[in-house]
């Protein structure tokens, strides 16, 4: 009897826990339009830390200095993926990602599947890896664990292939970011 009661209670508990998270949404149900749209976005813009500030990681001048030895960096895309276009001696595209739920392993596997060669390194005592493309010698990306959560990636893509180590610039950007303490 006691056992049956306990079992019953467990079932009730299970149902209640699942049902407990359902919530009622106010408003008129809208038919899905021809274009697949259904009403205005109801995303809560207060629930994300650093919203609209995701790309405020390093000063634009610093980015220009590191990737082009000066010149001018202009932010061109923002959010969890940020981009800058740097005009200096060469034109350079810079990409920065902060994937807050991301992991080093997923980024490395993806890089390999996309044909990049990876090499494990350490930057500011954090485990990191570089990613290079055999057919584009000027290109290099660096991914490291983010101190807050998730992973950071910097990619530096010069339009021409300048001499020297292509990974020096993204490693330097990562080092400045990690040492700056985000």
């Amino acid at each position, binding site marked *: 009897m006691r056992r049956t009661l306990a079992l019953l209670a467990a079932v009730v508990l299970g149902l209640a826990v699942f049902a407990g998270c359902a919530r009622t949404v106010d408003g008129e149900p809208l038919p899905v339009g021809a274009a697949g*749209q259904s009403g205005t*976005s109801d*995303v809560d813009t*207060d629930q994300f830390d650093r919203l609209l500030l995701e790309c405020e990681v390093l000063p634009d001048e610093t980015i220009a200095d590191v990737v082009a030895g000066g010149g001018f960096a202009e932010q061109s895309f923002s*959010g*969890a993926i940020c981009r800058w276009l740097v005009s200096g001696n060469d034109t350079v595209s810079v990409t920065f990602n902060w*994937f*807050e*739920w991301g992991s080093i392993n997923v980024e490395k596997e993806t890089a390999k599947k996309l044909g990049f060669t990876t090499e494990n390194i350490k930057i500011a005592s954090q485990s990191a890896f570089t990613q290079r493309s055999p057919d584009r010698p000027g290109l290099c990306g660096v991914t490291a664990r983010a101190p807050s959560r998730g992973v950071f990636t910097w990619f530096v893509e010069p339009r021409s292939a300048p001499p020297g180590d292509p990974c020096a610039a993204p490693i330097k950007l990562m080092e400045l970011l990690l040492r700056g303490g985000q």
Partner: protein
Amino acid sequence: MSTRVDAYIWAIRLTKTRSAAGAACRGGHVRVNGATAKPAQPVVPGDEIRVWVNGRERIVEVTKTISKRVSAPAAAECYIDKSPPPPPKEIIAGQPRRDRGAGRPTKRERRQLDRLRSSGFLISLVAVLALALGACSSDDTPSDPNRPNTPEAPAQAGSGPFFGRCGGVTLEEVVRVTGFTGLSTTVDNTSVCEWDTTGSRTGAVASFNWYRGSPIGREEANVKLSRDETNKLEIKGHTGFIGWSQSGQICEVGIDFGADFFEWSIRGDARNPRPIDEICNAARELATMSIERAS
């Protein structure tokens, strides 16, 4: 190269000691590719190992075989952790637990437990329920002002589809769908492909952006705060958003895949404005192509 499963699960730190690893195998708590494994069962990269430890199941995919302990970061390189996230603290707190070192219950304690279970159990059940329901409330005060109610990952990062290079779409196809003549590839990396008509982002630009382990809500909030209008969108059974501004000649489509999402962002030439519908149709068509070509 293969290695023994007991040595492997110890080396990647699923068990604290080598002997506990052997005991877990003999106890039937270790499965390799779904079959219960003996301690000496060999494992090779690609195998899936399931181990029941510390009251939860850990699922790992072998990427490199090791049989000796190495540094924790090096060990983490040897497997892909596919374990489900641990249950929330409220559920764990609701489970009765004896103090460490208290040993087995005495006869007297057992009788007390029996009495508690028959009478007080329903009361404690109500308490657990109240806790569990409280956890769903969105009115919780954030504990850290720099990190408001940031959502937890609904799945493992990277568990969405593999979209391939540039979302599976070529330069020629982007030119055809957008009608932007003279595009060239200016960014091509693991998360972004960007095509630009001028090379200096002063004309029309298109980009594919692949976010692995990032809440789509963050991007949707970004778009909502910076574009004229942002709507919910569904393509091929996948939900997401579409946001645009006519004056900025920009339209962005984001599609949700659990912990991952992608976004196609299309911006026309402001000196040569077109109806925003045309630009949004291009963004939607490219998103559909990426979904269809994903693996």
